[in-house]
């Protein structure tokens, strides 16, 4: 392939697709706007906050993730086969996509840069504890670390542990305290 700047190639590709009637540039604008403004970790945080305060919802979320979040009608897709895995005192979950960058867009937005990088993709499977330590997550030696590799269809999200100090807070308040990293499994929440 001839070596043009990626920005030039992108513009050339878009102009050809428009000429051929295959692409509506306004649709591209809408996708960008959606991911810049409306789709992101705040959606996942709302779901986590509800799971912490609604035992019935939590059970449904862990049992059949996609169905449980259907009522929110989140934009962004990539959650048709959503599996939510819960952290406990004994188990810590970590999400990765070893082959590319699969990620539950509608709940967490687009993945951060490091999630797509070769180092995270390879090392989170090979040496998850070392990777977690680099993210500042120190786990007891007895904690069972489970790594979930997003496959062609399944997208994972971690249900982080609720800090005891946060019990009794309203869902909206809780949602603002929940970080994206805690829902990927590379962060812990603390009061």
């Amino acid at each position: 392939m001839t070596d043009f700047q990626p920005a030039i190639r992108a513009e050339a590709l878009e102009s050809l697709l428009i000429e051929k009637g295959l692409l509506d540039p306004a649709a591209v604008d809408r996708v960008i706007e959606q991911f810049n403004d409306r789709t992101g970790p705040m959606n996942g945080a709302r779901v986590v906050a509800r799971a912490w305060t609604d035992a019935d919802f939590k059970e449904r979320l862990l049992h059949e993730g996609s169905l449980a979040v259907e009522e929110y009608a989140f934009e962004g897709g990539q959650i048709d086969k959503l599996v939510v895995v819960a952290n406990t005192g004994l188990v810590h979950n970590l999400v990765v996509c070893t082959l590319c960058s699969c990620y539950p867009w509608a709940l967490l937005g687009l993945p951060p840069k490091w999630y797509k990088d070769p180092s995270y993709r390879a090392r989170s499977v090979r040496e998850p504890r070392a990777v977690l330590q680099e993210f500042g997550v120190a786990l007891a030696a007895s904690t069972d670390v489970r790594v979930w590799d997003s496959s062609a269809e399944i997208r994972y999200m971690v249900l982080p542990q609720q800090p005891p100090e946060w019990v009794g807070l309203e869902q909206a308040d809780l949602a603002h305290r929940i970080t994206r990293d805690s829902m990927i499994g590379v962060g812990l929440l603390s009061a």
Partner: protein
Amino acid sequence: MSRQETSVALPGQLQPPMMNGEVVFEAPWQGRVFGMAVALHEAGCFEWEEFQASLIAAVGAWDAASSEPYAYYVHFERALQELLQAKGMVGDGELNRRSGEFSERSHGHDHPVRS
């Protein structure tokens, strides 16, 4: 608008979820190629799984042997081009010609669309 301004401008629940301090796209062209892929899929040009397979191949080619620095959206763009070429929608020849035309524009027009 910077992320900081966005966060200040919108209250409570409406605050854009963004990326815990990271921007979604580092350059406008990255947003365009991502938006093109999603829009073409939504318009029925290909199944998302087909794009995903192309992306895995593009990323895998880098993983296997590359001296270039890893640049995710460069692979993403390549994956889209290769899928569109395989589907007979946009050929490499016409894409190279158009890229050549665009790269030779006079100064002041060498920026991506809608940047």
